[in-house]
């Protein structure tokens, strides 16, 4: 399900002393099934942008077209849009509220007016998708789970709505490396199984580099870069000038290249760096 953002500008509190321009003329095409990483600092406009994709915010100017429908047009069913575009906020576990895990995950599908068997089927499926065992966890209180588990229950609540596009705002903040790898691994598997479009908002270049097909960079309300990770990281000087890091290994290869070493710099992961350095060392007879 494609999303097209055209000349999107958003101004908070226009016409007041508190007026601030959060987005300026943003253009973005998200194709069906793509996996995007959205990066930028706090205050760069990332959150404002993603809240437009399911109609939580309306453009001041410009258009957001979801699956061919301009969502600011009169008479558009926003409930339907929000069902198609699932948004997982930062710290989604703060939004858990029910007595049991099952009730919490069932809340959305129930509100859709689905029959009970369908609700249960969806709850089961959503919990398994995030790596939790339905029978073991369904009757527990969400508040007695570990932080990582709570977060997965919250994500399951969004998945139970069967969205076609899943947007996750910093899903790994505050988790340890294992918790982070679990959540990211589940997102990858989810894409493989359901072929949904995913937009991942993150500060971590190293996570984004190894996962996504494309990266969009926000800075001061504008989309300043977009393309494959290799294309975007090529402009590392531009990224550095707006205070964004590139993955350590990419940075390493660029430094080696600058020292006159014959190495490729479009390296994104530790594995790729290993292969490239071994290749260069072998050529010199050192390995």
């Amino acid at each position, binding site marked *: 399900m494609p999303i097209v953002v055209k000349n999107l500008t958003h101004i908070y509190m226009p016409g007041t002393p508190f007026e601030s321009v959060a987005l300026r003329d943003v253009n973005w095409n998200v194709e069906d099934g793509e996996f995007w990483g959205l990066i930028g*600092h*706090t*205050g760069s406009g990332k959150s404002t942008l993603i809240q437009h994709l399911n109609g939580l915010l309306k453009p001041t100017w410009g258009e957001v077209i979801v699956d061919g429908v301009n969502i600011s047009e009169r008479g558009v069913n926003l409930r339907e849009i929000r069902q198609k575009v699932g948004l997982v906020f930062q710290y989604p576990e703060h939004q858990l509220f029910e007595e049991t895990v099952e009730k919490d995950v069932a809340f959305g599908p129930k509100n859709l007016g689905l029959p009970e068997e369908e609700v249960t089927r969806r709850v089961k499926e959503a919990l398994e998708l995030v790596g939790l065992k339905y029978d073991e966890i369904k009757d527990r209180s969400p508040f007695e789970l*570990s*932080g*990582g588990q709570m977060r997965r229950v919250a994500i399951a609540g969004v998945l139970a709505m069967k969205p076609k596009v899943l947007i996750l705002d910093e899903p790994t*903040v*505050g*988790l*340890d*490396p*294992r*918790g982070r790898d679990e959540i990211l691994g589940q997102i990858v598997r989810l894409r493989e199984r359901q072929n949904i479009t995913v937009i991942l908002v993150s*500060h971590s270049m*190293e996570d984004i580099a190894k996962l996504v097909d494309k990266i969009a960079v926000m800075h001061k309300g504008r989309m300043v870069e977009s393309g494959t990770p290799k294309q975007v990281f090529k402009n590392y000087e531009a990224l550095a000038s707006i*205070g*964004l*890091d590139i*993955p*350590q*290994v990419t*940075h*390493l290869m660029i*430094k*080696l290249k600058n*020292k006159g*070493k*014959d*190495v490729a710099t479009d390296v994104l992961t*530790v594995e790729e*760096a*290993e292969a490239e*350095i*071994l290749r*260069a*060392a072998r050529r*010199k007879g*050192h*390995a």
Partner: protein
Amino acid sequence: MAAEILAEGVCYQYSQSSKMALKDVDLRIRKGEFVAIIGPNGSGKSTLAKLFNGLFVPTKGRVTVDGLDTRDRENVWKIRQKVGMVFQNPDNQIVATVVEEDVAFGPENLGVPPEEIRKRVDEALEIVELKDFAQKPPHLLSGGQKQRVAIAGIIAMRPDYIIMDEPTAMLDPVGRKEVINTVKRLNREEGKTIVLITHFMEEAVEAARVIVMSEGRVVMEGSPREIFSKVGKLKAIGLDVPQVTELAHRLRGQGLAVRNDVLTIDEMVECLCPLL
């Protein structure tokens, strides 16, 4: 009496839990040190931090700060003045509507005279490099700036030890760097003892000593170089190493002559240059 925080045979059990959160922890934090504590979620790091200033008292064993036992209620105020705490979420730590008033809150509560408070607040804001923000409302600051306001509030109470429980977890990369630079300066220039609990290995690398916790126990202890050279062991308990450290480890596995204790990009460049 030794100037140090000392944990001896410390066990801690939360009242509603059947499991020990800390098991037989022995640890010494010397005055002036910069120590990082790393470990997976649930390994006991935050529990340990709360034992250092008497927010919790041990179920078994004892914690002393400059010789003062945290179990003795009489010592609580003295200990809290010696040991300041900085937490994860800056928004939960800021109480006033103007930056300098927020920084003044702690010393005011200690009954410090007004002229002295003024002096301390100015100094503290100078140290965290927020002098120009003294009159600003905190909610207009960035996450990194807010966290530095929280740190200034602690500095103004003049503690010897500052315990930081994941102070950068909620910040973006720029905010993280701001806070870590402040922490380094506090240790090197102001001589404060720092205990930094973190999930970010690049931050732990900055410390002089790293303590690794797993399942309520201290499982490793040493310089960042010693600790991060044990890539396999760290991964087994669910921790990361910096990308370049892992790369060095893998290249060694392939027979390339690189050091196994590489921590930074520049060190790695130095190692690799002769080979390429």
